[in-house]
């Protein structure tokens, strides 16, 4: 492992450096790229640190849109009074990620573009010697998913899907999907925008091309809106086993929903839209009983093959109820 290290001052400079190398990687906070380097998932010839680019940092509110620069640290998002006020789901989601010491460096852009996590692929560099003895999986250019050879477990998805069984790891991705956020990707050819809920393809790979740089995230702020994020973690500082992000808007009348979006993390390779419960909730006014009834429709297509799946579905329904209630009460 040996690479050049650059610290450009502008986005243009960063994109130019990228085009000058065959296998360069952008380096934001480092809390994802560094473990991948250790696990030998990446072997870049150059790292391009984005830390010196001030235009990528900061949280702004212009009219109906909150713009978050891709290099804004998760700690800044967590402590932002503006976000706590208008989009409480985002600081809550940021708080669930790793520990404060990691969040002091980790950025929202890095969180959205992070590599998928799986013990059979890259989790923990200390067990790399063991992974070297197993058949390479889809992520290592192989043709099997090692996790699929065993029974389903808590670290993998519960919905039925062929291919890689690893869940989408980004908490911010789940939260931003429910809020209907747009990601702005910049390359030498110009900029393109993509909705956050379309940003991931199965297998938890972000739809970002090698020549592109995620520059900012735009989140629409609506009237009479409530949002919440909740996740279940078995212990502090680990990846969420399952998480729910809720964004509701209400009609002028008190408890009648105007729009609703609920996305789950940890159950699918991309943010999982809870379509059936949301359709049920939209049919009438929001009450405690109806939230409970809606949660029973969540993940009802899942084939509960073992207790781990049952547990994950039960936890998902539980945090769905809590998150919807929280968004309902926290409406502004």
């Amino acid at each position, binding site marked *: *492992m*040996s*690479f*050049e*290290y650059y*610290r450009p001052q502008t986005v243009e400079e960063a994109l130019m450096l990228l085009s000058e190398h065959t296998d360069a990687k952008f*380096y934001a906070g*480092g*809390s994802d790229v*560094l*473990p991948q*380097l*250790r696990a030998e998932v990446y*072997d870049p*010839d150059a*790292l391009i*640190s984005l*830390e010196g680019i001030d235009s990528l940092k900061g949280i702004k509110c212009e009219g109906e849109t909150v713009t978050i620069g891709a290099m804004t640290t998760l*700690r800044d998002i967590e402590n932002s009074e503006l976000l706590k006020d208008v989009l409480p789901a985002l600081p809550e989601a940021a708080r669930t990620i*790793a*520990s*404060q*010491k*990691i969040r*002091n*460096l980790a950025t929202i852009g890095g969180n959205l573009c992070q590599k998928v996590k799986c013990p059979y692929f890259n989790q*923990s*560099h*200390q067990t790399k010697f063991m992974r070297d003895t197993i058949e390479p999986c889809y992520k290592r250019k192989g043709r099997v998913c090692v996790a699929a050879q065993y029974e389903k477990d808590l670290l993998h998805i519960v919905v039925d899907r062929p291919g890689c069984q690893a869940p989408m790891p980004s908490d911010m991705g789940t939260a931003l999907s429910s809020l209907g956020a747009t990601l702005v990707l910049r390359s030498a050819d110009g900029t393109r925008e993509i909705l956050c809920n379309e940003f991931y393809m199965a297998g938890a790979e972000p739809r970002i091309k090698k020549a592109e740089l995620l520059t900012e995230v735009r989140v629409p702020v609506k009237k009479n809106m409530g949002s919440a994020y909740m996740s279940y973690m078995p212990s*502090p*500082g680990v990846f969420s086993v399952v998480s729910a992000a809720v964004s509701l808007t209400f009609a002028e009348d008190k408890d009648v929903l105007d729009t609703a979006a609920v996305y789950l993390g940890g159950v699918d390779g991309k943010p999982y839209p809870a379509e059936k419960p949301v359709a049920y909730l939209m049919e009438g006014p929001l009450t405690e009983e109806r939230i409970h009834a809606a949660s029973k429709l969540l993940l009802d297509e899942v084939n509960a093959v073992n207790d781990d799946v049952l547990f994950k579905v039960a936890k998902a329904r539980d945090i769905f109820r809590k998150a919807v209630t929280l968004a309902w009460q926290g409406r502004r």
Partner: protein
Amino acid sequence: MENTEKIYRQITLTVNGFAQTFLVTTDEILTDTLRDKGGYTSVKRGCDGGECGCCTVIMNKKAVSSCMVLSVQADGANITTLEGLEKDNQLDPVQQAFLDHAAVQCGFCTPGMIMTAKALLDENPNPTEEEIVEAMENNYCRCTGFISVKEAIKSLAGNYEPRA
């Protein structure tokens, strides 16, 4: 391996108030630079993955796990390690509180604990118990001496005066 020839960079770190120049490889982590090249042995290499908190240093006023920072990334940064807390033969209030509450067992995690606690108190001199727990999560003590650590930090809440 394809490319194994290391690339070197010269970086400047201000460690505990002294500007120092280090010659580092681009893939070197800050823990190794501080510990092996700088001799700041309070920076422990624990889990090597940002989980255990033993390598915590204060970088630009924020607690970070130094094993998750490349040395080249820290170029120009202002770093405080445990060695920099004691001044004029006087322990820092956080160190003294840890001593008074016997919040030390084997001591391996203690430098990281103290640096994390100090960063918390510098930022928020009156933390609640929840805030203390949240800041100190991912500081592992394998002797499991967490209660006395919490008590030590709690004793400083509200009457902590950071020293210049």
